[in-house]
């Protein structure tokens, strides 16, 4: 039995997805911890880039928000948001964008705007921020989120950040856009996207079986050619995560 918590399994798995990456657009929370872990393991040259315009942050403490002053002190650069979103993100200079969401569908469409109808929402969520353009312009996207039938849904209530197709399966990404979501990391496992742009189970965390995944998905989840059993995070990795998360 694993002594890693669900969050720690997600951080370790998301960090593994960043192997060899140079530039990652991150937010706070699990993506931030994952990117920092990756920088200390599988992606030594990784530069963390924040929506606030900070490039190459070396935070002396775990930031409370993407605007933490500790992200600025020691960073390689700060730039205006016009330069960041225009010349950097839209210019194709971000390899990986890491995003979270309240809902995702099989095509990787993400909802961070509303649960329920837009005009009369049951829950008003924060909205896009930079997520819509990150989903379109990063060369690829890794999604980190919790999984249940409430979040892995047949139809998202609102498409904030586009995936591979429209929710009804029609349409495709514009020619100029990046590859879109290539991996989704949850507390149950890791998902990739098949040739047709549909999500498929690629790996299970220790102690999780396929029936648990099916019970936590609002549509019939496809399987990758082979479904891996993800390794237990090593003692060193767990210690590193616990240092990062504090």
């Amino acid at each position, binding site marked *: 039995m694993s002594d890693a918590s669900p969050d720690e399994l997600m951080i370790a798995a998301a960090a593994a997805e960043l192997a060899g990456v140079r530039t990652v657009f991150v937010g706070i929370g699990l993506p931030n911890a994952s990117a920092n872990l990756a920088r200390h393991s599988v992606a030594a040259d990784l530069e963390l880039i924040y929506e606030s315009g900070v490039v190459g942050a070396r935070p002396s403490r775990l930031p409370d928000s993407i605007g933490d002053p500790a992200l*600025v002190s020691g960073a390689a650069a700060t730039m205006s948001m016009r330069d960041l*979103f225009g010349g950097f993100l839209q210019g194709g200079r971000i390899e990986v964008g890491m995003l979270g969401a309240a809902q995702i569908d099989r095509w990787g469409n993400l909802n961070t705007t509303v649960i329920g109808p837009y005009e009369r929402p049951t829950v008003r969520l*924060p*909205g896009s*921020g930079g997520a*819509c*353009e990150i989903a379109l*312009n990063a060369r690829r996207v890794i999604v980190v989120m919790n999984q249940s039938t409430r979040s892995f849904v047949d139809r998202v209530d609102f498409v*904030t950040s586009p995936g591979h197709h429209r929710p009804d399966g029609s349409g495709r990404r514009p020619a100029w856009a990046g590859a879109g979501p290539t991996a989704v990391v949850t507390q149950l496992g890791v998902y990739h996207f098949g040739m047709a742009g549909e999500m498929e189970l690629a790996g299970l965390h220790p102690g999780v079986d396929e029936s648990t995944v099916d019970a936590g998905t609002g549509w019939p989840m496809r399987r990758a050619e082979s479904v891996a059993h993800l390794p237990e995070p090593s003692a060193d990795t767990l210690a590193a995560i616990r240092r990062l998360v504090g």
Partner: protein
Amino acid sequence: MSSKVSSLREAVAANLHDGDTLAIEGFTHLISFAAAHEVIRQGRRDLTLTRLTPDLVYDQMVAAGCASKLVFSWIGNPGVGSLHAIRRAIEEGSLEVEEYSHHGMVARYAAGASRLPFFPLRSYDGSDLAKVNPLIRRVASPYDGEEVAVVPPLNPDLAIIHAQRADADGNVQAWGIVGVQREAALAARRVIAVVEELVDASVIRDDPDRTLLPGTVVDAVCVEPFGAHPSFAQGYYDRDNAFYRDWDAISREPARLAAWLDEWVIGLDGRAAYVDRFGSAAMEALRPEPRPSGTVDYGRYR
């Protein structure tokens, strides 16, 4: 040149009127809470408030009844959760909203600053945002016919920005996260700069690269130390994360929020009184250790 230095009370009274569009910008950093509180005290009404991230600053102004419309791209208490006063106002139908993405808002200020009829960006394809906001449109490129998303210009009547320092001529210097401060100010009809300290013109002129806005675009300079608290001023004081967390419980209950506004805004005559009430020792505790950069030599030429 005559000094642009004035009290915040005079600057707000002279430059902001009921029904105006107001941008208090600053992305997580340098948010002028001091100016927002002055607007609340002066009882301005029917404002259109624009900001990428409405943050606590607009939650407080909406709770105080200053606003009828909000233009934004991310609405939350960063790292904490919801902005409850804004959420209540939206649910009651007393606050109109117009929603974009971050790049959309940046592009709107850029169009406004450059007097362009729209600004193109690579976003919104396949997103429902354009379905709920009819001002997000598409145009065909006149060169190859490719369609691209466009957003309209945004020209606030007044932009208020906070910065580390300025001279009496209104030359404003800021460092750290600069967000959209320059674009918002250049797009605005009038600009108030609130600063931590007033410095001699030679301090500015020895390092002109650090100038965010030259005095020619600034209408008033107001000196309000700790004027961005509970947000931060890089090198001067840290973000008060505990305040951001505590705000959740305060803004959840309308009666508690009203009492907070009475105690911390309406019942005080300005930022100095706010700092006194907060406790100068508690404020001082937010100061970081020094980490000075090396000096830059621009040279003296003959």
